[in-house]
């Protein structure tokens, strides 16, 4: 959905860290994106190639690690992939999301 504004936020925060740390050219940016975040990787790639122009990560490779939805039962400890909202083992609804909601800048690679 908001691929372009997400990418702008990514670039802004990396640029800030880059200025603080006096980094060189950035050659690779790795993001972790959860499946539940309604983000389309192809649009993210395209947005990055456009929005990074003129920044310290122009031309850098963008790596997107997609994480599937995974939930866990607080009551019996069972965990499962997919959107089932009740525990697939004991059927209770005391569950938590373990992954699938990520929207994280994982790392960058910088030329020395």
């Amino acid at each position: 959905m908001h691929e372009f504004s997400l990418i702008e936020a990514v670039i802004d925060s990396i640029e800030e860290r880059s200025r603080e740390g006096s980094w060189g050219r950035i050659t690779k940016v790795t993001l972790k994106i959860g499946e539940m975040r309604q983000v389309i990787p192809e649009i993210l790639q395209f947005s990055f190639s456009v929005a990074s122009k003129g920044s310290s990560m122009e031309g850098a490779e963008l790596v997107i690690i997609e994480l599937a939805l995974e939930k866990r039962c607080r009551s019996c400890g069972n965990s499962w992939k997919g959107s089932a909202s009740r525990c697939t083992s004991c059927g209770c609804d005391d569950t938590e999301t373990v992954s699938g909601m990520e929207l994280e800048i994982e790392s960058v690679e910088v030329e020395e």
Partner: protein
Amino acid sequence: MPRRISIRQSVMAADEKIAGLLRRKLSEKKILMLNLIGSPGAGKTALLEATLKGARFRSAVIEGDIATSRDADRIARTGTRAVQINTRGGCHLESHLVQKAMEELDLDGLDVIFIENVGNLVCPAEFDLGEDMKVAVSSVPEGPDKPLKYPHLFSRAGAVLLTKVDLVRHIGFDRGLFWGDVEGLNPLARKLEVSSLDGSGIQEWIDLVEKWVGEKRK
């Protein structure tokens, strides 16, 4: 050789931080904040009008729209304080916009802040505004298949309201399908049917909000 630097920072860190600040402030002031989300024309403003006419709690409304102050004007006519946010093309509200709107409210005289998000079933579900709860608003004429087609909102909402139920006898609506899918996505959500036109279900909704207000005061 390039050097790898670990960052591990949320992409929306700036906005999440503001949402956290708002949540803390609202909890200090013991104000409940509800974020109403639904497609354009689902009946969000009509629901608020009906709610505000019948409610005893003290409310204010933050209205998000791409353009115009029509919804805020409608709310103001009920005698309730309303602040309009125009997103100028933006398809959802973000916490920094809500923060600005909240500066215009007198927080000491309030029990509830209702946020009417920009009419959109998709994007607003992604953005934390510091609310206690997202409320999904889905109307009978949109059809009963919306929960599964737009699961992100329905699975994150604390309450799901089916609006315009007065229309069921005119156009039909598969209630079993709708509520079955909502239950499958989100067993813990409160589930209500309302009509702002004939008033059915509105009192139950008001009672529910009043109960949440009571819990927030504790």
